[in-house]
């Protein structure tokens, strides 16, 4: 009896196992098909996935390639490096150019060989940003930087200096039209990216440049007298000064405070425009103003690009896609529709400009901007620099704070 039961169990289990195998079979023939046709896997964030999909699929059907665009919503860079190490990564990844340093040190991406003619189709700053150690590592598609966005109903004229901005905002506040002078996100832990224009206008810099124009990690500008001077000016705008910079304004609320008409001036990037349009606010975009008598306020210029994974399974098709297909203008224009970051392709920019003046305005605001450093040492800056900024905005002594931050940063760089 017992043996018979065991036999029944075994037989049924085997049947179920066979059913499991049956499920696997279609998948197997699927991979077999991919092997004859070739496949291409692209990883991007959600918004870009939506814009990319139709183009990637068209590329696939035109060329007999199976294309899969996968949205990675969180930690795309880390996930890409980890997956690529274990051999399960994509063929192409889409991301910001300041990832390049880290991706290269992990051997996750390889240079893309573009011809001189192909390179010249892009804005110069875009190709410069994706060039690292003399090699072009990605094909850029969008350029982005922050600018001063102002509510023209409240503030009809663009301020030439930050002092003018504060004076005009104070009048608006006194008249009860706004409750905040300026929406520039700081947060409890600071925001190095958004404060950078004011920092440069005050005379500070992060890294010096080598003779070939690359950033030089050995020349750290944080902690130099100029950086202290810049932060002294920033402190004067802070909570213990004019009250234009506040830690209570952070990434989560700065755009909504502007769209809620609680402040007339917002310092933000192209990603804010969708919300502003939704709130039907009349706005204008101008460069971030600097301190009176100071240097020009330089925003960081970032570039979004496509990278070819070095451990991808289909490098030939991936290279074909980024080098020869991405240089088409309509894809760049579609990506602009998905999120209005100005295209890197000069021709696409012209096409976008005709219908939407914002792209050009943002580019103008980024003229003379500093390319966001892609060197891995930049990772050591963000956190201490931001925290020092938050402390100084809250009223801390610039000299002691910046000296301490510089010590932390250089300690990490020299490790």
């Amino acid at each position, binding site marked *: 009896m017992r043996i018979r039961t*065991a036999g029944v169990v075994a037989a049924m*289990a085997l049947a179920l*196992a066979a*059913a499991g195998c049956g499920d696997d079979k279609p998948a197997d023939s699927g991979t077999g098909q991919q092997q004859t046709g070739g496949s291409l896997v692209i990883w991007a964030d959600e918004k870009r996935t939506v814009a990319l999909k139709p183009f990637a699929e068209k590329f696939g059907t035109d060329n*007999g390639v199976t294309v899969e665009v996968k949205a990675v919503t969180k930690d795309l860079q880390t996930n890409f490096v980890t997956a690529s190490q274990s051999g399960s990564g994509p063929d192409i990844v889409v991301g910001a150019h300041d990832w390049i340093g880290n991706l290269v040190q992990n051997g996750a991406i390889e240079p893309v060989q573009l011809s001189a003619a192909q390179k010249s189709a892009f804005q110069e700053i875009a190709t410069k940003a994706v060039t690292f150690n003399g090699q072009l590592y990605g094909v850029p598609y969008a350029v982005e930087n922050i600018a001063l966005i102002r509510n023209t109903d409240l503030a009809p004229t663009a301020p030439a200096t930050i002092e003018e901005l504060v004076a005009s905002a104070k009048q608006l506040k006194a008249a009860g039209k706004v409750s905040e002078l300026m929406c520039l996100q700081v947060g409890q832990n600071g925001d190095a990216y958004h404060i950078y224009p004011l920092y440069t206008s005050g005379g500070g810099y992060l890294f010096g440049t080598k003779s070939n124009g690359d950033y030089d990690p050995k020349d750290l500008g944080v902690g130099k007298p100029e950086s202290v001077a810049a932060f002294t000016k920033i402190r004067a705008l802070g909570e213990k000064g004019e009250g234009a910079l*506040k830690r*209570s304004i952070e990434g989560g609320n700065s755009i909504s405070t502007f769209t809620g008409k609680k402040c007339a001036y917002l310092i933000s990037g192209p990603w804010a425009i969708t919300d502003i349009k939704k709130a039907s606010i009349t706005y204008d975009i101008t460069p971030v103003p600097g301190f009176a008598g100071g240097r020009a306020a330089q925003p960081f210029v970032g570039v979004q690009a496509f990278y070819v994974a070095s451990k991808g399974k289909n490098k030939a098709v991936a290279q074909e896609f*980024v080098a020869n297909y991405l240089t088409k203008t309509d894809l760049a224009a579609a990506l602009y529709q998905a999120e209005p970051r100005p295209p890197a392709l000069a021709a696409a920019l012209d096409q976008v400009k005709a219908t939407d003046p914002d792209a050009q305005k943002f580019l103008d605001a980024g003229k003379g901007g500093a390319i966001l450093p892609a060197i891995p040492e930049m990772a050591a800056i963000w956190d201490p620099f931001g*925290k020092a900024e938050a402390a100084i905005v809250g009223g801390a002594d610039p000299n002691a704070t910046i000296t301490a931050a510089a010590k932390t940063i250089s300690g990490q760089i020299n490790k």
Partner: protein
Amino acid sequence: MTTDHAAPPVPRQRGGRRSVDSGGPPVPRGSQGLGGLAGKVVVLGLVAGIAVWGAFPLIGARAWPGLAVLVVVTALIFYVYLSGRHIPAKYLLPGTLFLIAFQILPVLLTVSTAFSNFGDGHRGSKQDAIVAIRNASITQVEGGTEYGLTVATRGGELVFLLVDPTGAAFLGDADGLEPLPAGDVTVSAGRVTRAQGYTVLNLGQVGARSAEVTAFSVPTANGAIQSTGASRASERQANRIYDESCDCIVERSTGNRWTADNAAGSFVDSQGGHLAQGWRVGVGFDNFTRALTEPTIAGPFFRTLVWNFAFSLGTVFTTFALGLLCALALHSPRIRFRRTYRILLVLPYAMPSFAMLLVWRDMFNADFGLINRLFNLNVDWMGQPWTARFAVILVQLWLGYPYMFLVATGALQAIPNEMNEAALVDGATPGQRFRRVTLPLLMVALTPLLIASFAYNFNNFNAIALTTEGGPFPADNTTIGATDLLITYTYRLAFGAQGAQYGFAAAISFYIFLIVAVVSAISFRRTRRQEEVYG
């Protein structure tokens, strides 16, 4: 203690460690009944199905040890449940397997990582690093020619059909470049579209032989012609080449050398610089000693440890006190609408803590936050150390007390009423009855849960990362904030600067594990004594 409410914690808030011997396939009792048999068949069928499903990738990757483990484990499961003997094994096996898979393996992996330099720049093997360095140094040869490329086959063998800027066509193969007679080929738009004796491949076909095409190179005098995608090729050369004789990387254009430092996993030059691409090596106890000796880490370690204890103990005691108070209040049968009150009290527990933490963070905003507005205050909650600490504990209290309320209610209902009545007969006051009868009996049931709660809160990363991010930070030290727990501090150290340092993070996690293990062990020992008295 056996009521539903006092069951092991639900995963969300306090689900740090679920007891491992629950779960797993239901243990069939002998060979009785059709239902039991069917259940056995289904579960064993699932096991077989999962095993087959898992086997294919393992075979594909030629991971024979992994496959062997899979086969042995599956065979073991079948043997134990199909044979009539080994009754204890039937009960022990699932728990043991889950213990190995989810507890022992991760701990072993963490410890082995802690002895390596695994992290950004040191992820792969030395060979990976050499390939990455070489490929990163490939540049177009100065004055080299750009070709329009067509990938083709000659009787199955891959060849490049190339067209130079003047329109002349060439055949490129492993032997080098040779001109193709103009009569045999059709060239349009700078590329060969048809050639006699060759089969032109389209992009899909190129994709199918991608690895071959990418590796294909046509040797020339100055370097080699290689492809970019499927339509262009140019003459290129790698600048940095590995030389086995000196175990070093040599740069062709300058003659610079980087010698392999096999202890550090980097190629280093004579000035102390190193190439960015390194590899993973064992570093012994370096990560462990670094955590103890580096001043920026060891200095604030004890201050953080003290706050870490204060945070987790404070959270456990405040949530327990409030939860117990509510449970006691609602335990009295004289209260009407008890059920409604209970549902209302449990509400915070039913909301996703992730979202709630963010909402609370915004409520504490100095200018826009609900709390300052509601009470007409002007407190910079997250900007000062003590208010920030108060705020995070308050948030934890709100999130955590419903759980304590639930378990305390359950435990209260399990206390026999006779005990209280006996005390009443003896003339005890309500206060005495609570202190001498109810509380001790409660503690027997609840102490293990409080210890679990402590261990969970000791590593409650979300509670800090989603609210203060460790801040506020003192102006003169931006590395460690007033509300930083060891775990959030570790996270920033390991992933905040210079990319991820998994080896170092693993070493600190190991220290945290030791601390929590010691505290838990001591507490459990004390509980056992308590049980001996009251149990």
